[in-house]
């Protein structure tokens, strides 16, 4: 069990060590060398998208086809992350006393904005706007509960400055004849000061349902790997903290070269399974993106979007 104070301590303590850009370059070089051979079996033009959720599915159930998801359709649990994080933002801004109070106004404001300007902050606005009262309430309830679990897992007063909530997924496209996209999603990004004049570091916080798996440290390392690959100019995250509110547990991974290397191995293993699925027809081509919005939208709940192996439409 973890108390809010303990989890917060583990996030804001100064980084133990910071990897330089050369570590990210080595990870990038390794994947750039090894990935093309793995995806060579796919038809030309295919693309592969790797996410933490998919790697977890493959890890928990290595049977063929385990990484393939059902066709996408909006559901309350696909909205809870983006709406829940926005509700927490409202609490941090002093606009609401709790996520329970915030979710309704935040959702209403998003729908109003979409109806007025056509701009979809979260992507789910048109779907949500078309729902009846009961279904809307189900969405709000799911989001409020998710957000309240996160809200009570941390001591938010101790974050100076406040953490960045959500934000765009980290993404890296591996240069290969068949495009491979790695995607990483964190719920919080926290900048923590360094010790005794050392530079500040970035801590990623990932929130998951269920319980941590035995290899969760490697999985958390994947998030740091994608963040490190994303841009040569961005520093490698100092730490990733995984939160499992259902069990009130947390896992801390300080990022070292070994962690990045293990995460790279996880990616390669996952890719091998996905390519194998695609080759046997289990990874059917995706049907395109729901609502026409691009994959990896800025703050949408893309974790649930069909992240599949196989050919891109058309």
């Amino acid at each position, binding site marked *: 069990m973890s108390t809010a104070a303990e989890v917060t301590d583990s996030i804001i303590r100064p980084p133990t060590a910071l990897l330089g850009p050369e570590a990210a370059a080595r990870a990038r070089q390794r994947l750039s060398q090894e990935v093309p051979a793995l995806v060579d079996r796919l038809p030309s033009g295919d693309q592969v998208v790797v996410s933490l959720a998919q790697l977890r599915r493959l890890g928990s159930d290595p049977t063929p086809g385990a990484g393939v998801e059902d066709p996408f*359709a909006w559901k309350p649990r696909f909205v809870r992350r983006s709406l829940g994080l926005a509700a927490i933002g409202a609490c941090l801004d002093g606009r609401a*006393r709790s996520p*329970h109070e915030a979710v309704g106004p935040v959702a209403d404001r998003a729908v109003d904005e979409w109806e007025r300007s056509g701009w979809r902050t979260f992507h789910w606005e048109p779907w949500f706007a078309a729902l009846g009262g009961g279904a809307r309430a*189900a969405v709000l*309830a799911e989001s409020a509960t998710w957000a309240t679990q996160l809200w*009570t897992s941390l001591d938010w007063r101790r974050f100076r400055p406040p953490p960045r909530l959500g934000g765009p997924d980290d993404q890296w496209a591996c240069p290969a004849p068949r495009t491979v996209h790695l995607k990483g999603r964190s719920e919080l990004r926290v900048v923590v000061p360094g010790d005794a004049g050392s530079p500040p570091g970035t801590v990623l916080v990932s929130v998951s349902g269920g319980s941590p*798996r*035995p*290899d969760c440290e490697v999985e958390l390392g994947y998030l740091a790997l994608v963040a490190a690959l994303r841009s040569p100019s961005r520093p490698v995250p100092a730490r990733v903290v995984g939160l499992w509110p259902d069990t009130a547990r947390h896992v801390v991974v300080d990022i070292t070269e070994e962690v990045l290397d293990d995460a790279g191995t996880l990616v390669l293993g996952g890719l091998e399974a996905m390519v194998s699925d695609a080759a046997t027809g289990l990874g059917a081509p995706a049907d395109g993106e729901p609502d026409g919005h691009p994959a990896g939208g800025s703050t949408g709940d893309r974790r649930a979007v069909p992240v599949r192996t196989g050919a891109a439409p058309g």
Partner: protein
Amino acid sequence: MAVMETGTHRWEHCAIPASPGGTGPGWGPARTGVVPAATTPVRRSGPIWTPLAGPELLDRLRFTGRPRPVADAERADSLRQFLEEGLEPLGREPGVHEGSVARPPLVVTKARLTEAHSRPGPRAAGDRAPTPAIACGILIGVLFRQLITTGSIGDPVADGFGALAVDDRHADLLAWVGRLPDDQRRALDAEVRRQAEGLVRRWPALDPAWLPRTEEPMRADLAGGAVVLAARVDLAVGRPGLDVASVAVVEVKSGARRGEHRDDLGFYALIEALRHPAPPFAVATYYTRTGELDVEPVSDELLWAAADRTVAGALALAACTPPDGGERRVTGGRTLAGTGRPGEHGTIPG
């Protein structure tokens, strides 16, 4: 009108309508002293019980008459150690990882515990067949969630089915309801409306500072991950992890009071005590059919009784569940037709 408080009940001495029996399909006879819908009242002298409502309802939940438990790491450790020792026979073989296909975890839920204690012996894996009572319970569950979250319910039937329609775990139940004969469907709708009206009339808005959360998933892993205690509570309020217990848990039931409901509350308290340094200070069952609220203050005795029952039940479940499937599947958290509750029958809540 004389009023007297007796524990969770308030009795008012005035005329009492007769209670002729069931009010809908599958609900069984109404409890004495409770006014069923669509009945002809017969006046007679005697006490009539009226459900608590508004602030009184919440006060009943908040003030149990006992000191709230304090955070006690030793208590939590002792409970966990007791459970670990009791469940040791179910632990994994060396080298077998949690969640692996070779040995999925035994998921212990309140429903499975009740089943294990009430009906020992082998049991078939599979879904519980829907009934009107189960459908009513699921609809009232989502309406309660709506009321807590938004503070209102529109048309209970439309809102209830609307909420179920966006949750694919209820697809089978919705299809089943769609096939109900007209008279049964009308009876179902009428009972849902009646119970929802009671909810709206009696449940006040919760202060946001209470941090209300509905359908909160909670779980505890034991025996190296070989056993998972899993629950999803209808309502939890209060901030967890404080030095003094601040969390209360409410379970909503649309049917009649049953003995195992108290055991369910103990199971919730146990999981929460394993998750956080302080257990909940109260666990309660709210009966939407009657408006009764049974509040159980959480004590060490309750927690240890729950731990005993959990170990015995888990061992019984393991003894009669095939190790390579059946109810030990972990196939993605899909709920079962009719229960509406993920994780109650061997799947892990998502």
